[in-house]
Every structure is written in C-alpha cells, then in structure tokens.
C-alpha cells in the first residue's frame, strides 16, 4: 500500500466511477418502442385518409398508446425489482419521460375529446413537448447531439403549425423515425458496446 502515489489514487477513483457509470447506460429500447408505436399510429391515420381505409380510428391509438404504457410501466416496475443500482441521472430521465408521456396522453386523448384541440394541432403540440423532453435529456446526458434532436423537434413543431393538411401527419411520422427511432438505436448500440 505504501508505494501508491496520489496520482495512482486519482486514476483509480476515476476508473471506478467510470465503470460504475457504464453499468447504468440507457438501452434505448423505450425510445425505439414508442417511436415505432407512434409511427404506426400516424401511418394508419395517413393511409386511412389517403386510401379511405378503416384504419383512421381513435381505437388504433388507444391500443398503441395503451400497449406503450403497459410496456413502460412494466419495465419501470421490473427495474425496481432488479434494483442493483440507481443513479440520479436515470431517476431524472425516468421522470422526464414519464411526465412527457403523461402530458402527451392528456393532450392526445382528453384535449381532443373535449374538443379544445383539433386533430391538426396534435402533431405540432406533441413535437413541441418532445422537444422539451429531448432538451432536458440532452442536458442530463451532457450530449450536444441529443440537444440537437430537441431543436429538430421544435423546428418540426413550428413547421407543422404552418401545414394544416394531411401531409403534416406524414412529416410527423418521418420525424418519429429520424428523431426518435434512430436515436433509440444509437442508444441501444452504444449501450451494447458499453456492456461489452
């Protein structure tokens, strides 16, 4: 023990901290699942409208969003049961996405059924809320590219306020792929790399 130097100690502390941080990286599965679910919902609206299919039904959304929530709550619950370790950042990210999800669910279901919000306002509103969630996540991760996703969502939201027709739905679907599903895959791949 006596031949250790102060610098060795510091290097050791840093290594332990980094190793510990690596144990709790985001696996991206939630991002991918929600992105795909919303993409499917949007495409069912778009295709239903263009090809006059019966897929343009609120029940499609009830099933998709219901499934998303069941998956999310089940994974939060199972993680709680595993409970090997809990970090502050993971706790904040959980609260960001749970609250964003809750906000979007209120806007998507209650606001539309009250008649206060029309269908064409939904995509820009969701996009704006997602922008906020990505901005906070980017700060938690201290990641510029995640913050840039927020900018993408906000700019997309503003643009969609100007497009009051069915094309808006297609744009939102594409944004879901580009700004949610693909980042989810990036998280997933980097988490796999970290675990290795």
């Amino acid at each position: 023990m006596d031949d250790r130097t102060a610098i060795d100690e510091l290097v050791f502390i840093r290594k332990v901290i980094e190793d510990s941080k690596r144990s709790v990286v985001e696996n991206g599965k939630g991002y991918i699942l929600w992105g795909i679910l919303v993409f499917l919902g949007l495409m069912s609206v778009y295709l239903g409208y263009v090809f006059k299919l019966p897929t343009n039904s609120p029940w499609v959304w009830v099933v998709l969003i219901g499934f998303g929530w069941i998956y999310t709550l089940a994974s939060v619950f199972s993680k709680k049961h595993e409970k090997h370790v809990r970090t502050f950042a993971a706790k904040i990210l959980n609260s960001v996405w749970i609250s964003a999800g809750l906000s979007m669910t209120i806007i998507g279901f209650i606001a539309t059924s009250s008649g206060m919000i029309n269908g064409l306002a939904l995509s820009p509103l969701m996009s704006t809320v997602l922008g906020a969630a990505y901005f906070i996540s980017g700060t938690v991760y201290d990641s510029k590219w995640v913050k840039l996703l927020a900018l993408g969502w906000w700019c997309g939201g503003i643009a969609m306020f100007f497009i009051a027709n069915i094309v808006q739905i297609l744009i939102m679907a594409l944004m879901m792929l580009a700004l949610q599903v693909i980042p989810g895959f990036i998280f997933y791949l980097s988490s796999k790399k970290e675990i290795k």
Partner: protein
Amino acid sequence: MNEKTALEELQFIRQIIEETKKAVIYNGKDYIFWGVLIILGMMSTYIFHMSGVHFNYFWIWVVLIPIGWIFSIYNRIKLKEKHPSTYSGKLIGAVWAAAGIAMTIVGFIGPMMGTIKPMAISPIACIIMGSAYFVSGKIVEVKWIGNLSFGWWIGGIVLLFVTSIHSFLIMALLMLFFQTLPGIIIYRKYKQTMAIKA
C-alpha cells in the same frame, strides 16, 4: 502520468462529487415574476372582456412574455455571478428553459396560424407546467414541489372543458397558488439560507 493529467482526473472527480451533492441555490424570483406576469395578463384579459373593452388580447402577451424572458435571463446571469453553477442547478435551468420554449411556441405560433384556439393555450400551458414541476421536484428532491405538478395537470384537464371567459380567471388562480406562492416560499428559504451562510 504528469501533473496536468492528474489535474484532469481531479476535475472529473470533483464534477462527480458536485453531481452527488445535488445542491441547487435558487432564489425563486423567476417563479414569482412569471406568476405575477401571467396573472396580470390573465386578469387584464378577463377584466377587459367583462367590461366590454374588446381588442386583440394577443397583444397583451406580445408585451408580457418578452418581459418575462428578459427577466429570467437577467436573473440567471445574476445568480451565476453570485453562486457557482452546480449540476442540479444546470438541470433545473434546462427544465424551465425547455418548458418556456415549449409554451412560447404553443402560445404564439399555434394561435397565429389558427391551428390552436386561444382558449386552448391555458390548458396546454398547465400540462407543460405540470411536467416541469414533476421533473423539478425530482431534481431538488423536494416532494411538495413535485406534488405541484398534480395541481397543474388537474387544472389543465379542468380548463380543457371550460370554454367561457372564466377560464382566464381559473388560470390566474392556478398561477397564484401553484406558481407565485411556491415562488415566495422558495424565495424565503433562499433568504434564510443566505442569512445562515453570512
């Protein structure tokens, strides 16, 4: 390994220690200022409408919201000068900046394009506020701040069904109880902390 590298290691470790402390020094002035500003906007719209003075009320907000942003930025700069920034402080800043940007987009661009009815702005703002309080409560680890989110979410849902002018009055009350008063509590706590430190 040279001294420079060792100091880099130190910087990294220090940052982790700061993150663990979760210290947030916040004076709550933003909360109070924004609360009073929105109450002013809501009440003036309500009173003008009730007393038959009609004009495009949108202009009230064109004046008030930039004042709020200027004050917020000024307050942040002042706080940064007084206290070193911490990880939790940075997160809180990000939460409210994100909520502010989202509400500004919804409140200005949506109604300007006619996609959002002016009456829908308050409930959507409430829902966004709910999220911001929920996350803030987790960051500062203060339960009552987190619980304010439920007030905002419930208030937002109620406002979705109120289509009359009274919606403005309800929003003003929500701003008073779930924004301005908590701001005053935070401000008093800040003053106490500063007095102890002094």
